[in-house]
């Protein structure tokens, strides 16, 4: 039981309908991309949840660090002028 096989972890993304983005649904082990897709089909689309599968080796994903989230994201917090609600449009104009 001590030999570790090389079935790496793959992150699975499913597109549920045309026009929508792929969404992360979980992970699984597989020896290669082809088997990862087959396994993803068996495990994550049993109820017709998707029309497209992406499989990505887990080690290919780089995540931002939660400890650095403040300096990373706060620059956007005080830029309210990026939102449409910042701008006053008279009612006579209708929808803009």
């Amino acid at each position: 039981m001590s030999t570790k096989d090389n079935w790496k972890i793959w992150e699975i993304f499913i597109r549920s309908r045309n026009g929508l983005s792929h969404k992360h649904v979980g992970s699984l082990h597989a020896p290669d991309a082809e088997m990862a897709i087959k396994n993803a089909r068996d495990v994550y689309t049993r109820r017709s949840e998707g029309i497209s599968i992406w499989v990505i080796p887990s080690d290919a994903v780089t995540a931002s660090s939660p400890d650095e989230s403040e300096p990373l994201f706060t620059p956007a917090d005080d830029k309210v002028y990026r939102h449409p609600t910042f701008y006053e449009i008279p009612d006579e104009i209708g929808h803009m």
Partner: protein
Amino acid sequence: MNLEDRFQDYVDGENKVEPKHWMPEKYRKTLIRQISQHAHSEVVGMLPEANWITRAPSLRRKIALLAKVQDEAGHGLYLYSAAETLGADRQDLVADLLSGKAKYSSIFNYPTPTWADMGAIGWLVDGAAIANQVMLCRTSYGPYARAMVRICKEESFHQRQGYEITMTLAKGTPAQKKLAQDALNRWWWPSIMMFGPSDDNSPNSAQSMKWKIKRKSNDELRQEFIDKTVPQAEYLGLTIPDPDLKWNEETGHYNYGEINWEEFYNVIKGNGKCNKQRLEARNKAHDEGAWVREAANAYAEKQADRKKNETHAA
């Protein structure tokens, strides 16, 4: 404020803990233990039901049972994946199950001698699991909570399938009704024991509640399940095997009889009717499947080499 206090504040704010967050080592360890036990339970749980697939009384029953058992495998996977986000190694987890080191839900150490057991399991065992899993949808660890949401969606067909089987028997011939009653008699107490002992006797409960891993106490969940299930049994004209079961107008809940915890602890220790068979079956499946894993490995390596040589040749 130290890291532990900051973490507690974060959890108290109903925020989800994600894999890359700092977390107390005990939080990580307790979650790995709980999630992997949950995963093992799903996988071992396939066995008592798989037992009846070839003998289901109709095609409809067969395909439903097959689909349920497939789902359980999938549930095991979602949970192993969640445990892996905490740094656990899949092969280590599987090895612990196969060696008997890891625990799994004691309910699966009971035998399934009749078709009616399929009804009782879906209705009661999955019913109890649902009560627990709905609560866990609000657990503080993100990947575990999300796995629970997915599992809950799939679990309700499991319970309906079981209740339908029980209903068909209960509304059938006297012999069929007797089968259903007999299964209820055997599965009732083990099912309510699934929620575990009262929390004062449950060593991990207090810290789990503090870290919002657990959102309701064992007794709360047990009461929820009993209150929901009694009317379901009454509708079928079946009798729950508890002479002390009685509606309490004051509390708005059912009073129920004393649980025999000795049996529970005995089964957990490994002395249940099927503990040995369950482990043997899992080990057999693992050993007999080795050639598949090896073949897939060898193929993947061959493909990778081929690709490497192609790029070199170019």
